[in-house]
């Protein structure tokens, strides 16, 4: 069984799904991510699904579950890069991904997550001050 790699970028965990997810792989990702959130003290999880050709009810439910688990563990999840055809299909199927925040791409997702974090805002403010001096 494939495992989806989880990368750490500061206090954010980045998951880029590049394989056609089989159900067991999706379940393993939930567990791996939960552990990594706790181990790293991550405040955000970014899931890039731009390489995913379909999201069916199982994968959709996995995304919702990951968002819920990470919230309980004090981290926010943003799903980025959904293809237009996938979005159309998901809504028609009846899944709304309730409780899952989305952004168009990794960059916008990162911005969303750092806006949530007071520390990051402090850092950028002081950086801006230095520049203006």
């Amino acid at each position, binding site marked *: 069984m494939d495992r989806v790699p989880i990368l750490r970028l500061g206090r954010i965990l980045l998951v880029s799904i590049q394989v*056609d*997810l*089989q*159900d*067991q792989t999706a379940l393993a990702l939930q567990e791996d991510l939960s552990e990594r959130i706790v181990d790293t003290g991550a405040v955000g999880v970014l899931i890039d699904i731009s390489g995913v*050709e*379909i*999201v*069916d*009810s*199982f994968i959709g*439910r996995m995304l919702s579950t990951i968002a819920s688990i990470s919230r309980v563990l004090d981290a926010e999840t943003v799903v980025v890069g959904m*293809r*237009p*055809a*996938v979005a*159309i*299909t998901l809504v*028609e*199927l*009846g*899944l709304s991904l309730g409780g899952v925040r989305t952004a168009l791409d990794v960059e916008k997702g990162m911005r969303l997550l750092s806006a949530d974090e007071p520390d990051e805002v402090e850092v950028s403010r002081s950086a801006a001050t230095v520049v203006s001096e």
Partner: protein
Amino acid sequence: MSTGPISTETIAIAVDQDVVRVRQAMRKLAVEAELSLVDQTKVVTAASELARNTLIYGGGGRALLEVVTRRGGRGVRVTFSDEGPGIADIDLALTDGFTTGNGFGLGLSGTRRLVDEFDLDSAPGKGTSVTITKWGR
């Protein structure tokens, strides 16, 4: 009238990985039938839902996938069949949000919305057969 060979493929559904194989085979045939990207995505998603039902509720079975033709275009059709416990109340099973308890309630009603034709044949103790068709536009 001469037509080229029409593709068909049969896939046994016995383990998790077979659901992925059904998705991949469905995609290949949908491309061959020249469905639009959105229609390809819809029919592959529908096939994925039904393959999982066959595995989980039917205890395994098979999928027969084919490219079909009619006047005005091509499409893809797939039939899932199993010898599982069958469905007692088909109308109820097709109701939005119906579930037997383990959280797969969207399956049938949502899947039906993604395709052009949907035929369900099932009886308690007789297994289940579901056929879906998506036509190119």
